[in-house]
């Protein structure tokens, strides 16, 4: 999975910068040139890019947690190999993005600690549960599909190290998406039980997929620093529209039904009704749909989602448990792990 790095980045653009340097910086960006790590950049840009890359890195490694749970329960050896490789890819994406962030001025250890103690965020969609194998299929189809759409546009950004990392990551996302699509197709061409399982997982993941691109844009989104400085190149709402234009017809053709759902505090669906807004608008050529529940989005971001506490507790456990390993390799003299 991958983070939509465009959530929650607010750049403070009030800071005073040398107007000549700022003008040259903007000229480079407008000319499509890449900004490199040792180039001059406004303090707000450095801070914003760090936040964005760090949020993205956090999302990669937290995103691996729900999927990692399913490696031992994969239904075949090929699926197990694929899921293991996918989880390894995601952690690798995290490692590369932490590197980009480190070069912008924050240590990796500080980032890992801030993540665990809740000082920094990761992508909201990883706070939802994956109770069935079909959830793994839907995550790889919908969430990795959304990640590709987002990251393709982030690869058109202006910050060189981040742009190059996006290009590289996207190659692996192509595999995540294709294998997810294969899993969804397998389930939907299978027995009634398999199709029902897929539908239930789809009901759980459709909302988080729509929220993936972040909340609706401010009217002046294109004039604000994140877009003016090409930290991102497409608005949240435009990305969301691209996503539904691709996935609504695909889901309908597969025989999936698109529902508006309510969920309990564990992230399980308690009631659902057909989304009666779903229709292709012949005039615009775009699909219409019911917007996700943005109150839920902000509730989950504030830490009150179904799995927030569990995801962070697991990261914390790994960090605390791994301490003796890190000390052993750093000091070259290992001691035995503490008794469990």
């Amino acid at each position, binding site marked *: 999975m991958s983070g939509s790095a465009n959530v929650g980045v607010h750049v403070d653009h009030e800071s005073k910068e040398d107007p000549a340097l700022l003008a040259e910086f903007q000229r480079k960006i407008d000319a499509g040139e890449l900004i490199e790590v*040792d180039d001059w950049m406004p303090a707000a840009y450095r801070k914003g890019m760090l936040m964005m890359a760090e949020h993205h890195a956090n999302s990669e490694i937290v995103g691996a947690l729900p999927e990692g749970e399913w490696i031992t329960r994969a239904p075949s050896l090929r699926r197990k190999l*694929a899921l293991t*490789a996918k989880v390894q890819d995601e952690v690798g994406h995290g*490692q590369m993005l932490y*590197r980009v962030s480190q070069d912008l001025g924050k240590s990796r250890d500080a980032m890992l600690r801030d993540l665990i*103690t809740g000082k920094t965020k990761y992508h909201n969609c990883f706070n939802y549960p994956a109770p069935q194998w079909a959830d793994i299929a839907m995550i790889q189809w919908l969430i990795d599909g959304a990640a590709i759409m987002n990251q393709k546009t982030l690869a058109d950004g202006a910050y060189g190290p981040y742009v190059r990392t996006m290009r590289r990551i996207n190659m692996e996302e*192509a*595999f995540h998406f294709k294998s997810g699509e294969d899993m969804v197709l397998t389930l939907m061409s299978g027995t009634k039980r398999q199709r029902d399982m897929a539908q239930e997982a789809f009901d759980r993941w459709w909302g988080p997929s729509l929220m993936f691109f972040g909340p609706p844009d401010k009217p002046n989104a294109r004039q604000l620093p994140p877009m003016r400085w090409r930290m991102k190149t497409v608005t949240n709402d435009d990305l969301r529209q691209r996503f539904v234009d691709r996935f609504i*017809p695909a889901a309908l053709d597969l*025989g999936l039904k698109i529902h508006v759902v309510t969920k309990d505090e564990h992230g399980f669906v308690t009631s659902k009704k057909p989304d009666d807004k779903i229709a292709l608008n012949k005039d615009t050529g775009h699909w219409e749909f019911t917007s996700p529940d943005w109150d839920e989005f902000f509730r989950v971001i504030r830490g009150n989602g179904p799995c927030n506490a569990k995801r962070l507790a697991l990261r914390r456990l790994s960090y605390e448990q791994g301490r003796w390993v890190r000390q052993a390799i750093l000091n070259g003299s290992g001691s035995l792990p503490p008794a469990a």
Partner: protein
Amino acid sequence: MSKLREKVDLVTGDLESPPEEDLKGYVIFTQLKMGQPHLYAGYLDAADDDMALIFAREHYGQDQECVGIWAVPVEAVSGTDAAHPASHDIGGVEMYQVFIQARRGAGHVSAETVQARSPAEAIEDAQRIHTDPSKYYSLWVVPQHLIASTGPGDVIWRYSDQSYRLARGYSKEVREKWTKFRDEGSLNEYEKDDLKEAF
């Protein structure tokens, strides 16, 4: 999943482990065919050279067929770029590996070696070889003995079937499965948005 992980204690608040130093940064170069130059692949963090090479094999050595890996500590790099200032301190004569960056933002590629008494001298020597400044953007030099390298016979790339971890390993099956649900035309349209993998 282990019981411990399944029923993890929901601890919050400060961490028990104290803050730590980051591991050492390394630049990784991969060699795709014997006799060819080493190409910049990316960065990683490791405790020492051995760990850097193990990690690099998994992280950068499986992207494409690859016969050799170099791991270079970031602090060992001197260059013409602002990020890697070169020391002028004269020491004993040493062999330096030169890396050339063709364009701004491009990855460095290994070139010749030069003998010099300091990194700054090695850069001057390299600039005497690469006299046309329009042909490159920056130069790096690294003392050769600080480059950790895989051995000549080491197997890095795995020759077993790895199609399960590539998009193209699924394309044919996926298309076949779709034909149950969609006609050729709309399938072609849908596939247009697929991202083609290519390094």
